[in-house]
């Protein structure tokens, strides 16, 4: 069950998406997420769907790997959808005691559900096609301009955003997630063999059963951290300064094309939503003119 978490998991395959510069993929994911919020009409969502399907096909990652990521948020998804379904005001469609479902509620619930699913799928495409190291390299490079800014703390001290350190922390965390998960699994099994019960009981009982799990886990995590720090130091690690890169990031022509594609997609979605808006406005125009006309009439 613990192994279902696909966070930061990479699926090795040969595809254009795998070869793209991580910065492009980061930017594209962000733009795609924004586009999900720009889209409001079925046409907009349709476009997002087509885009997502095409990208997933292009990634050559089996679809079931994408849906694995969804499993871990299924609770969140259901809660969000339920909230929207029952709490949004509108014309009542159905009522049971204090619960009621409105037309607006259904509409928002569906919209929010789709948004959430697409969001996870979209970011899964990114993490599945990018090695954790590429990802952090991309983040580091993208945040590079931030290195120039600093907050002066007295005459000699300056606080700079530790961009390199943050990236290093992230890449190490990503490397150790599978190891720690495996360890959790092992400790759980060891304790289950001695009669511990993690499966039954209500949420609070389950949480309580986890406590004896955490102590050994933390202990070993700290040990690992100390060992790792030592190993890094022994291999001359001294922060980002003077460090060269084995795989320096460089834009290729395919990266520029990809930027073009994602921007094109975004413009089209925006245009369509605008179009839908303008269309709606035009359709409503006679009514509006009527209102204005009546308003003027009322003065006469």
């Amino acid at each position, binding site marked *: 069950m613990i192994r279902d978490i696909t966070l930061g998991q990479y699926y090795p395959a040969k595809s254009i998406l795998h070869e793209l510069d991580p910065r492009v993929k980061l930017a594209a994911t962000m733009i795609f997420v924004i586009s999900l919020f720009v889209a409001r009409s079925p046409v907009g969502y349709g476009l997002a769907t087509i885009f997502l399907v095409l990208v997933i096909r292009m990634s050559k990652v089996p679809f079931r790997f994408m849906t694995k990521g969804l499993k871990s948020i299924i609770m969140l998804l259901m809660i969000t959808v339920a909230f929207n379904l029952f709490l949004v005001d509108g014309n009542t469609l159905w009522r049971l005691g204090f619960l009621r479902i409105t037309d607006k509620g259904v509409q928002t619930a569906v919209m929010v559900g789709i948004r959430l699913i697409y969001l996870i799928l979209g970011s899964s495409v990114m993490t599945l096609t990018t090695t954790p190291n590429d990802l952090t390299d991309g983040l580091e490079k993208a945040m590079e301009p931030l290195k120039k800014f600093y907050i002066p703390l007295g005459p000699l001290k300056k606080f700079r955003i530790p961009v390199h350190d943050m990236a290093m922390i992230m890449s190490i965390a990503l490397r150790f997630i599978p190891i720690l998960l495996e360890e959790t699994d092992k400790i759980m099994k060891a304790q289950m063999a001695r009669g511990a019960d993690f499966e039954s009981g209500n949420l609070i009982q389950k949480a309580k059963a986890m406590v004896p799990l955490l102590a050994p886990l933390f202990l070993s995590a700290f040990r690992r951290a100390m060992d*790792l720090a030592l190993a*890094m130091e022994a291999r001359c690690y001294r922060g980002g300064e003077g460090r060269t890169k084995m795989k320096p990031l460089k834009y290729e022509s395919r990266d520029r094309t990809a930027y073009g594609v994602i921007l094109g997609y975004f413009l089209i979605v925006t245009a369509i939503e605008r179009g839908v808006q303008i269309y709606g406005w035009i359709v409503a125009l006679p009514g509006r003119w009527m209102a204005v006309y009546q308003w003027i009439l009322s003065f006469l």
Partner: protein
Amino acid sequence: MIRAEKLTFDYEKLDETGQAVSMKRAVDGVDLEVRSGEFVAILGHNGSGKSTLAKHINAILLPTEGTLWVDGMDTKDENRLWDIRQDAGMVFQNPDNQIIGTVVEEDVGFGPENLGVPTDEIWRRVEESLQAVGMLKYRKHSPNRLSGGQKQRVAIAGVMAMHPRCIVLDEPTAMLDPHGRRSVIRTVQKLNKEEQITVILITHYMEEVIEADRVFVMDDGKVVMQGTPKEIFSQVDRLKELRLDVPQATLVAYELQKRGFPLPDGILSNEELVEELCRLKSKM
């Protein structure tokens, strides 16, 4: 290559206010010299100060008293710290906790990256060192999916890519199965022979010591015995006193000797034992 003079190190336990409450002398007046290209093994039971000594060679720990020179550089000289660490690489016990990269080749490149080696040169070094430890075909693999022995070989490659003249291995085989152990030791021996890398191997396994040029035995922070494996292992009683094992063949020969068989001292391998026994039989 490496020279220690009256090397002493105390671990201090500090209380909350930073006052030293207790001290533990882990290394106590050690004098030793390791020549360039030598294969040296360090033995000693748990807590005898082997790891502490090893960490001095990499300037992770600095001596409380005495001096240690690596290639003529005093480890207390802060300006040479990175030269020392580049020159004397270190491989640790737990294979999981010393691999930094998420892909084998990225991990091997970590050291050269830190040294500021240009990109093309890093790739060359990575390939060369993976080749040297026989792990080139795993270059694109995730370290999590490798066996313990393979992980240790990757760790060795990571050190080799920094082009050191000396490698210190602190119980690199302690967590491995016999097969992994052999593959790691063979790799180390090969590097020692073919690339003239000075090797300092800390271990609990006597079989790994047999091929060393010289052996140091530590007890309670001091070097109490040193010599060739033959010299060391001919003193079975002394080793037992120090709570150390001896190779199985040596032990058998020792017991036979005690029962009156005129076998020579310092038999190390099974082959040697068989040979000596055959000779004995033909004489009878």
